[in-house]
């Protein structure tokens, strides 16, 4: 290209352009709407063969309602846990030096590389009564497998890399000058962290959180082994889809799929709005 690239003017402080660039984790801007809408359309065609009353009966049966509640609440809890530990992990990996750092950094990707079924049976064994962790928690009265707690554990596992990997490049690019300026103006370290560093990480953190959440909502393989799959108690929505499919109730399966896609779409829409707002106020 011979023309000058439309680079934004240099700004000394992380400004608006900074955030815009950051939020461009592929597909996360406007595009997400269509990304979620497309499969919505594919499945919607099948569920559209139902009358509205039939659709509601299939998509919002009591069993399905329990499944949605579990799927979305467990995903939210899992993503929140990852939001906290992902931030700490990214911070430690970028800012600190410690022995074994390279190994920790590499192993954070494990949930991406490990087949979900393998993760599922490993977690189920580990957290059940006789597993290494279960044998510690069960005597304390904490049941960690075959109930909703197990679902949260599995969803935390598979969402773990998202927040870390989204925050890392932003943290690395975050200029130390700003922190120095803040410190030289009299802020103590915690004020600097709370007022300067964390707000700058906000959009990337939210993006990582949303990706972990979205992944958790659709997750199947790692959950079904540890969940126990009791209807009305520990049955996740993707599992309910496969159960309906096994009974050749394609319309019911599609209806549940439509609801799941719709809610994740709404959820991501809200997060996009929050991001847009944080860009505006930054």
């Amino acid at each position, binding site marked *: 290209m011979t023309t000058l690239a439309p680079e934004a003017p240099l700004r000394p402080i992380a400004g608006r352009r900074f955030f815009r660039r950051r939020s461009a984790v592929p597909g996360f801007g406007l595009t997400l709407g269509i990304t979620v809408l497309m499969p919505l359309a594919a499945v919607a065609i099948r569920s559209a063969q139902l009358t509205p009353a039939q659709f509601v009966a299939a998509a919002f049966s009591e069993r399905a309602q329990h499944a949605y509640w579990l799927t979305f609440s467990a995903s939210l809890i899992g993503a929140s846990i990852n939001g906290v530990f992902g931030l*700490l*992990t990214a911070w430690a*990996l970028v800012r600190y030096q410690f022995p074994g750092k390279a190994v920790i950094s*590499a192993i954070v990707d*494990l949930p991406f590389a490990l087949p979900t*079924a393998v993760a599922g049976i490993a977690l189920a*064994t580990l957290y059940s009564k006789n597993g*290494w962790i279960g044998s510690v928690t069960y005597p304390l009265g904490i049941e960690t497998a075959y109930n909703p707690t197990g679902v949260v554990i599995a969803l935390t596992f598979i969402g773990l890399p998202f927040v870390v990997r989204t925050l890392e490049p932003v943290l690395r690019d975050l200029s130390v000058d700003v922190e120095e300026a803040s410190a030289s103006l009299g802020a103590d370290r915690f004020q600097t962290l709370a007022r300067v560093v964390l707000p700058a990480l906000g959009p990337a953190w939210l993006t990582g959180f949303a990706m972990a959440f979205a992944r958790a909502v659709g997750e199947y393989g790692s959950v079904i082994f540890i969940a126990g799959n009791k209807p009305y108690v520990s049955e996740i929505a993707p599992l309910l889809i496969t159960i309906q499919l096994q009974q050749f109730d394609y319309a019911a399966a599609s209806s549940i*799929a439509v609801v799941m896609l719709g809610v994740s779409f709404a959820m991501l829409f809200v997060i996009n709005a929050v991001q847009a707002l944080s860009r505006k106020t930054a």
Partner: protein
Amino acid sequence: MDQPPVPRRSARGATDDPRWLKAAIIALVVGFVLVMLVLPLATVFTEALRKGLGPAIAAITDPDGLAAIRLTLITAAIAVPVNALFGICASWAIAKHQFWGKSFLITLIDLPFSVSPVVAGLIYVLVFGLQGWLGPWLDAHGVHIIFALPGIVLATIFVTFPFVARELIPLMQAQGVDEEEAAVSLGASGVRTFLRVTAPNIRWGLLYGVLLCNARAMGEFGAVSVVSGHIRGETDTMPLHVEILYNEYNFVGAFAVAGLLCLLAVVTIIVKTALESLQPEVGRRAV
């Protein structure tokens, strides 16, 4: 006039955290990673070798186990090259050319990442299944897609669709078109330009994308589980075989096959880390 010296709180720099905070965060992070990631990995190998190496190997070399390994390898051998080829074409088009509907294409490429694997499988069942749009016609012509190899391959291609393209697009965009323009202006043909100029520039990124694509292709469970039909020895891939053995309480067998998949994951991570440190421009995109 003596100016009092500026009080210094400590010798550490303004951008450094207090030592206790550092230690606490590092301990927390290392502990979290050990409990959440290392323990599950260790569990797989301990459970697989619970009764020694013999039963573990027996479970893998069992005819059904070998059939599952074969099917997984065949699936990956089809899905990965298809997606690599597609990824190169798509990123070439997107990064080096301007055309209408480009952002829509990028969106489509991202699609499989935001869909539940189960829903991905469901889509193929709705289209190719016996109750689906094309199913009855295909069945009448003796073509079986669902509950057979083609369905498994299709579902795998769908879920691993974005890996290569998403790796190559930013890489190609960063490289720009200067070198290609130079080659073309010196008289090179399109194909020659690609082979001599573009391909050497993207080879490491391509390898990186193929690596991740392959790991997912061999390990995919949800989508494949919906379309496979779980016919033992025929349409069982390795992850599905793990599930069957586990549900039959054959834990040693399940974890032995799972151990193989774990080795795949570990090798993937090692190669990925090596690529990232040797080729800094590779793997910069977030997830």
